[in-house]
């Protein structure tokens, strides 16, 4: 089972087309294994980017050095997945 411990999802808002292009270039770097949950589409629309833990620092540095604003939407993907699994198991045990 694939684990996502420490992975974060960043909500990134590009200011202009140039920043959108930079995000696309970032997404094409296969070694980073980034996953756009929501693709960079146009200025002002948020893009959501799942970043594996080992690449977090590099990606955040890239965003900051290019003045691309972002916030952390999900601090730890695995924590949310564990919570989701717990909720499902609990629901299955509930008598209806």
């Amino acid at each position, binding site marked *: 089972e694939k684990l996502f411990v420490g992975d974060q*999802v960043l*909500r990134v808002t590009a200011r202009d087309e140039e920043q959108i292009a930079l995000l696309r270039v970032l997404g094409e770097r296969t070694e980073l294994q980034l*996953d756009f949950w929501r693709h960079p589409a146009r200025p002002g629309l948020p893009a959501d980017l799942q970043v594996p833990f080992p690449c977090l620092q590099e990606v955040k540095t890239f965003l900051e050095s290019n003045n691309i604003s972002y916030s952390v939407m999900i601090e730890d993907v695995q924590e949310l997945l564990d919570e989701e699994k717990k909720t*499902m198991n609990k629901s299955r045990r509930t008598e209806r």
Partner: protein
Amino acid sequence: STSTFDFASYHTLDEIYDWLNTLVADHPNLVSKLHIGQSYEKRPLYVLKFSTGGSNRSAIWLDTGIHSREWITQATGVWTANKIVEEYGQDPSVTAILDSMDIFFEIIVNPDGFAFTHSSNRLWRKTRSINAGSPCVGVDPNRNWDAGFGGAGSSSNPCSETYRGPYAHSESEVKSIVDFICGHGSVKSIISIHSYSQMLLYPYGYKTVPAPNHQELNEVAKKAVSDLAAVYGTKYTYGSIADTIYMAGGTSVDWAYDNGVKYSFTFELRDTGRYGFLLPSSQIIPTATETWPALLDIMVHVLEHPY
């Protein structure tokens, strides 16, 4: 039975497939289950048919879960299917629609991907077909349709999340729907449900020119998102795919529109800004509840504007 199913929880493929049988058993005069094909890993592809009888009726097609990790959509699909049977005979709009038209509803368009999200990788989006010559698995089934196939917003790289596949309709999950809709011949609307961006979109995605019915589709979308917002205040944007988000070749609604289905829409369900695809199950019923009046608006418009 349908009265003991927990609509406020996420469920596995087997649980949902069992529930389809229960729904049919509980409402045999209204709902039947059609087997329209099989997935790459040979899982059955089921479509619910809501019909009050008559032959050669015009129809509305609904689908959820083409992207497997968008769990809120499959859950909304289950709730909505149940809502349709609950409201028939009660709600005048639902009753009028089903007295004249059939509704087809494929709740799990991508069962291989959905099963994979439960067993191995919660964040899997694509199908599970093997790509010759590549270690990467799967095709994005919403870039695989024969409408601007291979165009912008899709990838030729099998390792990409938006890999379009080797050729249009290469995925049996897509081809089965194409064959079904073409074979039916009188599908008047297709509404394909995704998550999460809070949008209601219509053709085109593969080109920027307005669709010939742009104005009408825009008016329908405007009313639908307004009625959706009236439930909990959730604000949706609306417009053509290309204008509102980005160019995307090979999508289902563009294929439908290019094949004569005028009322082609795609929803992106709610985004709380905190969870993405991992929307807590407590959000299922609110999401489905607010989506319902918007769906109904589109379906009523289709009923009242025959073509």
